[in-house]
């Protein structure tokens, strides 16, 4: 990953799931606990500690210009860290980031929410998929500042919603992952599809996931899991791949 160097101590952050982690660990109840702990710990180690934020008005839709004389509708930020307020999984988060920070990096490095994966960092694999106002986007090609004023939903947040949860359960049931690196992005993409189109065909699922690359080739299981989560397939369907 060639993103910006952000002020954090990576040894303090919860470690990424990676290859060794089991499906139960990744998607089951345990994760919520780990993520929450990491979340608090992460918040403690960022440069945006509470002391730094005191008195600073976080950059939100209503925030005032940071500096300089500018006409109406023009605000200038950076190049150094600025306080930014994001709505992540229904909660308000204030972080202190440079404008060059991508949304993926802000989540992973500043908020210790490592459920969102970064693989290509170029918009070419969709591993970093999350929802902005329910629309799936690539968080590696989105500046965190561009998420201000929008509702961001990550894989961690999906666990708490009922549609998200049933999608994750279907992925587990169909064993729709091997290394798991594409999985959070796949789950985000497929649950966004069901929000837009609750009764998709397999072709709809294929089209929706057309940008999500899986090097392990778990596609047939992903399609079957999504169709089952939508209640449009025989839950006993077999996989021939």
């Amino acid at each position, binding site marked *: 990953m*060639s*993103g*910006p160097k952000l002020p954090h101590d990576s040894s303090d952050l919860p470690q990424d799931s990676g290859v060794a982690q089991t499906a139960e660990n990744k998607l089951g109840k345990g994760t919520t606990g780990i993520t929450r702990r990491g979340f608090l710990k992460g918040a403690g180690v960022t440069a945006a500690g509470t002391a730094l934020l005191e008195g600073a008005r976080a950059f939100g839709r209503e925030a005032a210009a940071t500096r300089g004389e*500018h*006409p*109406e*509708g*023009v*605000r*200038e*930020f*950076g*190049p*150094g860290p600025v306080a930014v307020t994001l709505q992540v999984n229904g909660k308000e988060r204030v972080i202190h980031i*440079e*404008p*060059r920070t*991508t949304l993926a990096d802000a989540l992973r490095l500043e908020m210790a929410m490592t459920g969102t994966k970064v693989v290509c*960092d*170029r*918009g*070419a694999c*969709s591993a970093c*998929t999350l929802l902005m106002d329910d*629309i*799936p*986007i*690539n968080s590696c*090609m*989105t*500046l965190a*500042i*561009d998420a201000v*004023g929008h509702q961001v939903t990550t894989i961690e947040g999906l666990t708490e919603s009922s549609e998200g949860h049933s999608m994750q359960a279907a992925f587990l049931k169909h064993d729709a992952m091997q290394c798991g690196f594409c999985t959070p992005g796949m789950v985000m*993409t497929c649950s966004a599809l069901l929000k837009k189109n609750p009764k998709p065909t397999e072709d709809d699922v294929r*089209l*929706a996931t*057309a*940008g*999500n*690359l899986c090097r392990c080739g778990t596609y047939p299981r992903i399609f079957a899991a999504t169709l089952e989560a939508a209640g449009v397939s025989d839950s006993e369907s077999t996989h021939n791949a």
Partner: protein
Amino acid sequence: MNQFVLVDCTTVDGALSQLKDGSVVKAAGVDLLDRMKNGTTTPSRLVNIRNISALRGIHPSPEGVTIGALTTLTEISEHPLLQSHYTILTDACGTVATPHIRNMATLGGNLLQELQCWYFRSEEYECLRKGKEICFAFSGLNQYHAIMDYGTCPSVAPSTSAVALLGLNASVELTSAKRGKRMVAIKDLYVHPDANPTKFTVLEPDELLTAVMIPQPAKGTRSAYQKYGEKQSNDWAIADAGVVLEMDGNVCRKAAIVMGSASPVVRHAPEAEAMLAGKPITEEIARAAGKAAMQGAPLQTAMQGAQPLSMNAYKVQMFPIAIYRTILLAAGQMGRDPSAAS
């Protein structure tokens, strides 16, 4: 990615007032951030236009349709009126990149994205288009490069939406604080490398692309676009065809046939268009038109017909087929090609 000052603007006037001191415009940033991550573009000031709501939207009128520069490719490809009257555009926007990129990418940014030549995208190669002396593609890896009308730089036109908009005879509205608005036809938007290697479009540094205007198609117009890539999704076209047919029953009054990934600047295939004009559309004539396109008279250089490089002769076979199938698709005589991008 280098550090930068981000100037966030919510109005067109505000953004125009900030286009100074080497500032670079950012829409969604899919192309710009890629170049910044690669280290080939290192702006110290970005003017963020993404939050200008006035630049977003699809506005039909009796004269045609106006599309705001910040409208996303998904918003365009899913628009029912555009789907029925400007199928070539919804086909094209709907096959760009991946679904998630289309949810982000703006029409203005798609038209103005820079070259995808891998030498150009790499910090390691200082080529002609970066103001230096050499092109690395002629003797290097050139399987995705141009086969026609390339002269000194065979990098291909990257924008898929431009293929459709050229076929539809569209124009862009360019706005500056000092000079106001001017309209530029898509056919005049791009600068051929032989004319100026480091200027990609006629857009000036103090201008914003504010809208795209497409005239009302003539009665009986049918259109289509198909893109062929190495994969069904994700990649830029290796061959593609945009077709607009003005039909009178089964007779084609006038045709526009456009290729994107054949040459450095998106181009018509006048030889193919001439073959269709005044004739009924048949399989034979569609095949002949595809072949004729490869005889292409030079539009920008002295290069007659397709002249493949060391690794891309396959493209000379793909374009005629892309054109033939897309003519029949536009005419309603063939379904969408399952091997084309979707």
